[in-house]
């Protein structure tokens, strides 16, 4: 428990014009219990209190504080609301991991088409590379990065990204963490863990679409 605050100003100093009201108010706000301030109408913005409180009132309050010893921390109950954090604006690093809250059973299923090495499983934050093909339930292919003869001779590369950090749809993040290097799996992902109610109209994904992916985990770094 902090030591009792000392009485800094004498009566003369208090009455003097050299001592601004704001200083007295600040001292009182810093050191008096909440209920004390409330009773003496000393709560709120210092500027506003200074406007409404007379110097004499402040001197009286100052005296009374030391008489009654109703300092901060002496009250049994401080208001709960004081504990609410103010919004902090800080330059935090941009890597804000979106913590996934446990909401129930997984909203995807996986069937293994080709087994992996069963030793190299990716952890959250690892970089994985995949070949994949995505189809809707009706069979329409909406996306793939698998090079075929039909495609222009573009340099095809597997898709690389850091897994488990919310960069991809949740179905992918969850499923890939269960796959090992070299594994090919068929994933059926419910809309809640894909593109949900909105879908992605410009990418041919309708609202509430269940997505089917065939994914090959090529590498884990």
């Amino acid at each position, binding site marked *: 428990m902090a030591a009792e605050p000392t009485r800094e100003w004498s009566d003369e100093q208090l009455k003097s014009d050299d001592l601004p009201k704001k200083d007295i108010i600040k001292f009182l706000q810093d050191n008096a219990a909440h209920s004390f301030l409330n009773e003496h*109408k000393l709560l709120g913005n210092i500027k506003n209190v200074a406007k*409404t409180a007379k110097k004499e009132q402040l001197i009286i309050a100052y005296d009374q504080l030391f008489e009654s010893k109703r300092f901060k921390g002496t009250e049994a109950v401080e208001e709960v609301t004081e504990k609410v954090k*103010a919004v902090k604006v*800080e330059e935090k690093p941009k890597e804000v991991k979106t913590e996934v809250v446990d909401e129930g059973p997984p909203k995807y299923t996986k069937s293994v088409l080709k087994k992996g090495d069963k030793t190299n499983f990716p952890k959250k934050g690892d970089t994985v590379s995949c070949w*994949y093909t*995505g189809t809707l339930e009706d069979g329409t292919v909406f996306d793939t990065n698998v090079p075929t003869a039909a495609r222009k001779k*573009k*340099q095809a590369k597997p898709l690389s990204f850091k897994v488990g950090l919310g960069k991809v749809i949740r179905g992918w993040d969850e499923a890939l963490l269960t796959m090992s290097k070299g594994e090919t799996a068929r994933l059926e992902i419910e809309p809640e863990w894909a593109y949900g109610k909105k879908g992605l109209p410009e*990418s041919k994904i309708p609202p509430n679409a269940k997505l089917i992916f065939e994914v090959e985990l090529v590498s884990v770094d």
Partner: protein
Amino acid sequence: MKTAGMALEQLSEVVQRCQALPDDSYTTEDHNIFTVAGRTCIEEGNSAQVLSIVLDEKNQEIVRCMGWNLLPPLIQVLLKKEDKNLPQCLAIFNHLLETCRPKELLIGLLEQLEQDDPDTIVESLHLLLKPLQKVLLCLGGRKASSLGMALSSVLDQVAKLPLPHTKEQEEDDVFSFCRCCTDMIDFVRPFVQEVRHNLLNNEMQSETTNRTVGRQGKDKEDELRTELLKFCMKSLSHPLLEVHLKDPDTLALSPLRTFATEILNILGSIGESIAGLVHQPLLKRKQVPGFLEEEVRYPKESLASLAHLVFVHHLAADTFPTVFSPVFSLRCNIEHVSLLLSRTEESKLQKGLELYEKSLVRVEDGSLRADLLEIKTFLTVPQNLIKVMTICPKHELRTKGLKVFQLSVDKFNTEAKYRFFQYMLKTSNHSGVEGYIIKNIKNQIDIALQPGNSNVWFEGVQLMPLLRKVLILPDGPETDLLQYLDRIMESLNLLRYLVIRDKVTENQTGIWTELYKIEDTFMKPLRVGVNMSRAHYERELQNTMEAKKSKAKEESVLSVSVGGEELPSMTPESQIQALHSALHTFDMIESVLARIEELIEVKDNL
């Protein structure tokens, strides 16, 4: 002064003299005479004779060394198009392209690209890009830096051209701007092919053997790739960030949209991943060794332009993977949005708003979490939005800004909304914005009070600190009521709502226990303020009316200043009108205040 005959004579003379000499012993004087005489001949219309000299087998060495100096007058003739010497000049021109040294031709051609007026610029680009391309292709492995120079020059010229803005302007292509864009794409095509070819070869080689292209060769390839990357990045900034692309429904065949698509295709061909570029703000890219640093290599404005093309115009949609989470896309795009909204040009503000809107729409309502607010950009963008909403001169942008602002609020979950409102009240310093936020708070409370929607942020213990920031007069009884009107009215509306909606016996919002304080900090000072202001304005009204009656020239009682400059004084009639309007406002405030007091009394007596 030379006569036509004289120039021709001198030209023939110097050519004859040099025929006998080996090319490394031509003197500077020989060069000068050839240049001056040759140019004069062409300018004076003797191109037929020059042509025969230039085609003469005996003169090929001379032509190879000195011929390129004839380019300036030749090109002038070719640009004029109606000159009767056109066929001969064209023939000379083509022969020079075949015969002279590429490096020198390059200098000559690039020089002629630099023009001042838009019409000449487009014509010279149309004329010279093909020859330039041909010359560059002759440079073999050394072409990269020359290509860079050429592209830089071309883009500098294009930057001087007026842009088509409407659909009609683009269709008619009155300024020939669209033709320029097409010409540029045609120009770079073979170089893009070369880079693509090299990349494929490298991949294949490193797969089959461990041998890769020799160090020097690889550097040259990298240089070429880098020059094309620079070209794409610059184009993304200008013209692509300035023009407003029309959608296929509006304009089926759009040269500008084609240009944009081609730029994205080029990026893909030279090995850049579009997704990688869009996500760049969040990726820690490896430092690429080479002669361009990261920020120079990928200018932020160009990447923002790219993101806009991908997300708003859906270009390159088939190469963009459909697996990224909408929240991740939002986090990347908000960085681009932040850049665009910090500019003043309307085209950039418009694109910033569009990109933000498109990114937000993909996210479910109420799904964005409060920890996102710890990312600085999530707070600076709303502040930029507020600037657009309040001070942008263009009405459509202000309206759109407000729409996108509200959309962003709707996407936050309740905790995030709470913190966001807190932050905005603290930092916006604008009565209109504060009023808008307070209205949002009221809506959230209303939602929370509905059965099944209960949350800890907009009722109960957490709500009160927020309400205290709302139900307060910024300067006590001396607050300028007119200046803070928007905020004050919304605060009163909120208070009235709470008093009506929240039953005394339930007190879900905590308003009934807090009311005595609110009376002290808000209602009483407000009443005092209203009375003071009313008295003041009534007095002023009196004075003004008397002054008007006596027709004495009075100093105006009201002065209005905008941006620090005082506007000319109002007429007495306008002053009176303004004063009446102010008094009416005070009446309005007072009536709501009275109603609230009435409601409190009723409930107290229940």
